[in-house]
């Protein structure tokens, strides 16, 4: 079971953080309709655990309305990057919380409609004034009704009122780019109303979340902070024996391991189902196990009760090498940072070995009892992202295809041979509502093949599309093993009738070196030529990570002019063998 430290631990520890300086920083505001003492202190300590300096602002007791509406309030002077607005059902319903049926059904419906609009207006004012992201909590659905069991036969009763409030709020927030919903009702359901609400604390301090549950609430909220700071994890690396199944396949044999048939086996099945679900939404899975490859792969491919199969893993390190080397190789082969990885292993010695040698990897302290494995996994707040794109959902499959590409590359005698067989097809697309989230995502996270490393939020991309002096496009890459999805982005500024500038030109590293970048640039040049442009100007802005893009412009045929690289449009475009380019 997920457990937490005492609130006093966080409060005391938060006082010792002043002297700690970390590179990453975040400014958080908490706005609430009730007392949430200790929450900001807990968030600060949890941020420090992630090497993040957190500066906090807590709005005065029930002052959130005034603080948001007054543009000169301390809230805006603080200039938060992320704000939590946490409201409770009692406050929002007022006396209706007790005497729900003092209003008629239609009055109750109107009440809900008004409240949703009020809240949404408030939220919009806040994000517009602060330019910060806002996380607004939904409402806890009351479990008590004066109508008792007849509540369920009452039209728009207190429960339905709150549900409707939540649903309307969620639906409206769905299209608000900077506003997110926190499932506060889910929090209370998870821990129980009877545990999280203490009447005495409510009476003496208007405390609506009991002190010992504040750290659990903070744990949930950190789940929003991590993706904002890019601290979310992308890959789960997992051991096999006694982690993915019970027993040791090398000793107990194919028929002897526990998976599915008894209570212990069912615990592993549950764990695997949870892992599969994460895989389906874009978390990469990999294996790091000391085992005979043939024994282990037979279980993965043939055991009737296994949920996870070989095809679900992007990388299989099943050998007798040390786990640290395996871990580094996985990071290398998948081209992801060690700081994007999470490691599950039942053996504390292996865990310690990884923790000591590759501390960037998040090593999970797996409990001894496998019945807790699934809970440990689903309680992790490390896999959250604020946006899930189609590419994310396909990622697992993409890595499998990537494994097959690498195998082809190894078996091909040279790169030409490899590309010839790969049949790369580049489809150039104009940015539109469907591609905006992915385009923004690529500008935010592409570090290696990125000429200028300009970071753009979705709202900015949307503005660019409507600007006649900008071209925003992207490239979808398909080959014989499958669809790589949208993996390239370019943004061109039409400076004037004879010169265009590459504002952004980037490529996801997994399609690098296959001519895709040349194809994209050819497309831009052809387009420029058609519009009578004479010169294309590029820049390379060097960062710690974008070395792979350093020589791209000169290699393509750009000439140096001061700090820029220029290409005369009259020159023919680059010949790219074995690549099909199409424009949609």
């Amino acid at each position, binding site marked *: 079971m997920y457990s937490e430290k*005492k*609130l*006093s*631990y966080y*409060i*005391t520890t938060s*006082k010792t953080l002043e002297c700690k300086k970390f590179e990453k920083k975040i400014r958080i505001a908490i706005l609430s309709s009730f007392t949430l*003492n*200790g929450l900001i202190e807990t968030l600060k300590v949890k941020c420090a655990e992630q090497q993040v300096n957190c500066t906090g602002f807590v709005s005065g007791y029930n002052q959130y309305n005034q603080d948001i509406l007054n543009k000169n309030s301390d809230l805006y002077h603080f200039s938060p990057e992320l704000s939590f607005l946490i409201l409770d059902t009692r406050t929002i319903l007022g006396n209706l919380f007790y005497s729900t049926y003092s209003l008629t059904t239609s009055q109750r419906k109107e009440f809900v409609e008004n409240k949703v609009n009020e809240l949404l207006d408030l939220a919009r004012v806040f994000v517009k004034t602060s330019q910060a992201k806002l996380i607004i909590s939904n409402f806890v659905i009351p479990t008590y009704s004066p109508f008792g069991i007849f509540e369920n036969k009452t039209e728009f009763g207190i429960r339905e009122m709150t549900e409707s409030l939540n649903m309307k709020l969620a639906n409206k927030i769905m299209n608000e780019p900077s506003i997110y919903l926190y499932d506060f009702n889910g929090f209370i359901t998870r821990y129980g109303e009877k545990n999280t609400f*203490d009447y*005495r*604390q409510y*009476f*003496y*301090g208007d*405390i609506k979340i*009991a*002190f*010992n549950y504040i750290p659990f609430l903070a744990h949930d909220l950190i789940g929003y902070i991590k993706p904002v700071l890019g601290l979310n994890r992308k890959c789960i690396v997992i051991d096999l024996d006694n982690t993915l199944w019970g027993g040791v396949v090398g000793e107990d044999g194919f028929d002897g391991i526990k998976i599915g048939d008894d209570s212990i086996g069912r615990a592993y099945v549950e764990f695997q189902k949870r892992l599969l679900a994460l895989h389906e939404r874009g978390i990469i899975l990999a294996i790091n196990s000391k085992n005979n490859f043939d024994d282990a792969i037979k279980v993965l491919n043939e055991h009737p009760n296994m949920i996870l199969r070989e095809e679900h893993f992007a990388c299989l390190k099943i050998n007798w090498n040390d786990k640290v080397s395996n871990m580094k190789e996985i990071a290398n082969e998948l081209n992801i940072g060690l700081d994007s990885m999470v490691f599950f292993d039942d053996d504390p010695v292996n865990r310690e070995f990884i923790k000591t040698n590759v501390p960037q990897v998040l090593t999970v302290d797996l409990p001894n009892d496998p019945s807790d494995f699934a809970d440990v996994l689903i309680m992790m707040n490390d896999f959250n992202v604020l946006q899930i794109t189609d590419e994310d959902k396909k990622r697992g499959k993409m890595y499998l295809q990537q494994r097959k590409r690498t195998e082809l590359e190894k078996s091909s005698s040279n790169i030409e041979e490899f590309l010839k067989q790969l049949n790369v097809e580049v489809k150039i697309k104009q940015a539109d509502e469907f591609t905006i989230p992915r385009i923004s995502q690529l500008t935010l996270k592409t570090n290696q093949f990125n000429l200028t490393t300009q970071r753009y939020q979705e709202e900015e991309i949307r503005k660019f599309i409507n600007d006649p002096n900008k071209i925003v496009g992207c490239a979808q890459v398909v080959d014989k093993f499958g669809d790589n999805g949208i993996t390239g982005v370019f943004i061109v500024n039409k400076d004037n009738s004879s010169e265009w500038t590459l504002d952004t030109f980037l490529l996801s590293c997994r399609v690098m070196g296959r001519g895709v970048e040349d194809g994209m640039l050819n497309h831009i040049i052809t387009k420029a030529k058609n519009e009578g442009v004479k010169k294309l100007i590029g820049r390379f802005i060097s960062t710690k990570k974008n070395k792979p893009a350093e020589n791209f412009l000169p290699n393509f045929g750009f000439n140096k002019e001061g700090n820029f690289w220029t290409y005369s449009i009259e020159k023919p475009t680059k010949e790219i063998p074995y690549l099909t380019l199409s424009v949609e």
Partner: protein
Amino acid sequence: MSQKLYEIISRVMNIQISDISDKSGAESIETWDSMNTYILLDEIESEYKIKFSLEEIENIKTVKDFKKYLQNHGVDFND
């Protein structure tokens, strides 16, 4: 038994155990404000698995009071 109580007070009030006596309370300890008192109550309750009534909470001002009410709830301080 008082050792455990002192440890909790020390943690919540952020003071040394040696600075705690029966007389300790809001008047002698700077960090002993109302919010810390509530947190202290909460952590003492969960440690000793008891629940104080609102009236008891109103009356608890010092460490001595804590001991008295904990004894009423069956906690033994004969040490």
